[in-house]
């Protein structure tokens, strides 16, 4: 009967790596041994057998979760990894499994774990179906800083002395843990440590700070035109500074223009209505190039100014893909015209 189940498992495990298969077979062998031991020892065999069969018949993910839980006996905050088993994370999981398989396990430990695992069984099944919501609700419950979590879990892990190779296993499990644990008793936000990266307090704090800054740079990247082409903070900052300077120069230029037109403000008072503004706003498409080009012929053109404009105008119409460069040329040309045109 058990061989039949084993074959079932092997069929279902066809997609996984060999290391996983080996691992699972080893686990199953352990369970077989355990079962023999159990059936000899106590009369509770039907229950245990039932649990073991459940364990067998359960899904890949739960088996792996079970094998992981063997390493996570450690204590209050930890439980099986419920977030394992997303499709593309399988490769990461395989790596984890191969790493964890290096740790040796005593049959006694496995028995303890299996018993404990049996009680936790229904949770993996139910949680697998609602993983996303679980994550979300868990995240909603966690409100404190990320750093505290890691410090606390570190201390809790270092404080225990239950299993053999505890420190080695704890480190590996910590590194390989992708997960958010069970609903914790404390309100902490769990950080997903990347593989092979340090998990000490300082580097975590730095990483959080860096992530914040990079996120804000992304917002700026969305808003500033032409920032997508540059990579790296320095280039992006260059573009941002350039853009801000351009906008400020535009404001100055427009204020100069309005200073000239200000006497007309009183004359045009009746015309100034909200609806007219609305019409103008819809006409003025995001970039100001077109409107400025419309205004240019109205200015009194000196000889030098007209030459500049005729040279630059065609460039402005055609160059749409280089807004940053055209900002500069445009504003410079406009300054030329303004300085030449307003000399009364």
């Amino acid at each position, binding site marked *: 009967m058990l061989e039949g189940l084993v074959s079932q498992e092997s069929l279902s495990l066809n997609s996984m790596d060999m290391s996983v298969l080996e691992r699972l077979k080893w686990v199953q062998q352990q369970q077989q041994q355990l079962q023999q031991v159990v059936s000899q020892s106590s009369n509770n065999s039907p229950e245990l057998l039932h649990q073991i069969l459940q364990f067998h018949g359960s899904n890949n993910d739960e088996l792996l979760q079970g094998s992981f839980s063997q390493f996570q006996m450690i204590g209050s905050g930890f439980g099986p990894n419920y977030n394992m088993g997303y499709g593309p994370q399988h490769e*990461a999981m395989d790596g984890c499994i191969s790493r964890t398989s290096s740790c040796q396990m005593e049959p006694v430990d496995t028995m303890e774990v299996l018993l404990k695992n049996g009680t936790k069984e229904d949770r993996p099944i139910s949680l697998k179906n609602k993983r996303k919501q679980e994550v979300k609700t868990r995240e*909603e419950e966690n409100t404190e800083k990320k750093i505290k979590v890691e410090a606390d879990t570190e201390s809790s892990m270092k404080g225990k002395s239950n299993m053999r190779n505890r420190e080695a296993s704890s480190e590996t499990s910590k590194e390989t843990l992708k997960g958010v644990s069970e609903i914790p008793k404390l309100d902490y936000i769990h950080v997903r440590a990347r593989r092979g990266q340090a998990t000490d307090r300082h580097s975590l704090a730095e990483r959080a700070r860096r992530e914040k800054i990079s996120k804000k740079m992304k917002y700026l990247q969305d808003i500033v035109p032409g920032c997508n082409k540059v990579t790296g903070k320095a280039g992006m900052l260059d573009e941002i500074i350039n853009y801000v300077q351009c906008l400020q120069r535009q404001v100055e230029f427009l204020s100069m223009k*309005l200073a000239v037109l*200000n006497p007309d403000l009183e004359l045009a008072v009746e015309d100034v209505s909200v609806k007219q503004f609305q019409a103008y706003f819809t006409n003025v498409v995001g970039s100001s190039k077109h409107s400025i080009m419309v205004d240019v012929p109205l200015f009194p053109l000196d000889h030098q100014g007209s030459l500049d404009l005729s040279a630059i105008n065609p460039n402005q119409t055609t160059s749409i893909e280089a807004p940053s460069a055209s900002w500069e040329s445009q504003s410079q040309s406009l300054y030329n015209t303004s300085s030449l045109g307003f000399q009364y």
Partner: protein
Amino acid sequence: MVNSNLFPSIEATGGESSTESRRKKPRISETEAEIEARRINEESLKRWKTNRVQQIYASKLVEALRRVRQRSTNEPDKVVSVAAREIRETADRVLAASAKGTTRWSRAILASRVRAKLKKHKKAAKKSAGNCKSRKAAATETNRIKLPAVDRKLKFLGRLVPGCRKVSVPNLLDEATDYIAALEMQVRAMEALAELLTAAAPRTTLTGP
């Protein structure tokens, strides 16, 4: 109520974050606070883009310009540059006022006028101010270790955004984002106003002697 507000935004904007986290190696998972912060940021940027805000700004600007015009009729001989500066400052103040005091740069702009008036009265204290400046200059000369390029640029950006010289980096970036959005709106409004005036005004005033 919080949940119902969060979930649609998560599906809209957090969808990309979840796919990203699955595509790449697992990153630091997003917490509710971060999702909230992102939503707030997007909302705050969008507040500068609505037509209504533009109209409000434009009407306020017109009012302010009229007042400036009335005030300056007492001194008719004004160079265009001075008038332009006044108009720019007026426009900036109106912009800062429409920010409703939530951002640092808006508060700095509104406060700068008060500070400028105080400085006019305190011309007697010019000597001490000069000493301070020289001391500062000497200090920077002696301690001239070239900061890394990124830090230099961040400092420069802090000088560009009003009132953000001694502000932390993430706050500076936030302020810069809001300031850029506000400046874009200001440019649009002033352009529209200028176009309106040039269209309405008779052409003879422009074609000078």
